[in-house]
């Protein structure tokens, strides 16, 4: 059972890698090298900040795009192109498929983020010729980016369990944008009254809270997220993913394949 999930995860990872997903790393590397050289030369005292902001933002944006498009591509495509037929003709349960896909995609994103993270550190080392203890706080911010990406993957899986690939991409992207403004959604809810308040509240909690997983700008100023916050955010991401995947499985389990 777990073994089959792992096989599916491994296959997903392999397919993503062969689909040239990791090519984004090239662009990323160019970006980092360019920024490092440029800011290393004109040194205006903010090269560290720029590298961190740029590096982590690129990590998050690339990651989010990959999570959305590969996540949806690999799942809806399996349904659309009917590669699932042969897969499910083997002793694979549908929830194992969902779980395996999720694990494989999350793994791909984690590896991708790891490599990017190393790129950021390399660029930092290049501009400052040393790493300070403050740079350790970057790890927390990077970890939270990975949490974000994992949540996006789960959401993408949920949507692709019932929507067409294009619509799944649209929904996921919308949720990503709304989720980035989740604190404002909470604020709206706080200002509203009666039924509107409850609806807005429900929406604010249902939407993934990407804003509170974003520590990019504070990391740039050397302020890390504390261990308690990291633990709580991890728990939040885990619970959110489980919920989304349970939803995906519930839908998928009773779906007639095209």
């Amino acid at each position: 059972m777990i073994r089959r999930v792992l096989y599916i995860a491994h296959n997903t990872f392999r397919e993503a890698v062969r689909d040239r997903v990791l090519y984004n790393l090239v662009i990323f590397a160019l970006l980092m090298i360019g920024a490092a050289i440029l800011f290393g030369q004109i040194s205006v005292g903010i090269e560290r900040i720029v590298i961190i902001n740029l590096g982590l933002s690129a990590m998050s944006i690339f990651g989010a795009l990959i999570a959305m498009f590969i996540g949806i591509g690999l799942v809806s495509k399996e349904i659309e192109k009917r590669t699932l037929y042969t897969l499910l003709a083997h002793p694979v349960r549908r929830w194992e498929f969902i779980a395996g896909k999720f694990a494989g995609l999350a793994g791909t994103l984690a590896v991708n983020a790891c490599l990017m993270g190393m790129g950021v550190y390399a660029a930092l080392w290049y501009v400052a010729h040393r790493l300070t203890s403050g740079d350790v706080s970057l790890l927390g911010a990077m970890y939270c980016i990975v949490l974000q990406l994992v949540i996006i993957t789960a959401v993408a899986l949920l949507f692709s369990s019932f929507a067409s690939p294009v619509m799944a991409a649209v929904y996921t992207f919308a949720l990503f944008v709304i989720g980035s403004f989740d604190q404002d959604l909470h604020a709206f809810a706080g200002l509203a009254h009666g039924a509107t308040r409850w609806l807005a509240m429900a929406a604010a909690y249902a939407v993934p809270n990407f804003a509170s997983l974003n520590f990019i700008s504070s990391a740039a100023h050397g302020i890390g997220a504390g261990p308690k916050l990291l633990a709580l955010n991890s728990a939040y991401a885990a619970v959110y993913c489980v919920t989304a995947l349970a939803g995906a499985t519930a839908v998928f389990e009773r779906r007639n394949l095209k």
Partner: protein
Amino acid sequence: MSRVHRGRVGIACRVAIVLGLAGVIVFSRAAASAAPHSDAENVLIVSSPRVIHRLCLGYSGLIADLYWTRAVQYFGRTHAERGTGYRLLAPILTIATELDPKLTIAYEYGAVFLAQKPPEGAGEPESAVALIRRGIEQNPGNWRLYYTLGFIYGMELKDYGSAAEAFAQGAQIPGAHPWMRVLSASMAEHGGDPETAHYMWTQMYQSATEDMLRNNAEQHLRSAEAQVDLSRLQHMIAAYRAETGHPPASLAALVRPGYLYRLPKDPTGQYYRIDAHGRATVQHPGDFPFLEIDEKTDPVLAMARKP
């Protein structure tokens, strides 16, 4: 077997969804409370509205609305915490109005709350005037902005000449309410009179389109009424003291000698009382945020100063 299996997975999923949603709420709240309280500050790392304008990629209207909501939220939260520093209010309002120069509510509301004295406002009437002037520049056909401008000149800056001028200019605009002229005249002639103030707040109360502005006006009116009552009570207390040689123990003491027919109530229906310094006051000062005691003309204080 298969149906059973499917059923079991279905039930497991549903249980996971319900527990998961509960968990999402729990951890979301926990993480929010553990996070440093810095959303508004972070939001303002980019402080030039023009830069933001460009960063918005054409969605500036939406972002402006967002900033406007943030301004309300920020003000509401600081106010609820009885905080005194509203230092971010002006920049947030600037960003919101710069992103969407036609967002007139932001000028109106923002100016009123920027101008008022802390803790009911930021106490920055100058930035309020600047904000509203920018609003007028962008929206020259909106007479309500002139009204707000005149209001701030008259009520906060006590610059009755400028106030009268603002009202007069606003009155020129087609569609302006007729009482703009009245306001202009009364500003010019009786700028500092309490009756003028009362009239202006009444107009504000009646014409405000926003709950927050209306509530604010109501608090002003209430405070003004209580102020008139208290001022009369102070005079009675001073007279009582002059007559009997000792201060009244309570307001009830003023009824017997005939100063009062009955115990007076404030606009919220509570009885007035006498505080530890022997002065008349309201039961719940929180209901009357704009109550001011003019120390110079207060008869009780004058008496206390005279041995």
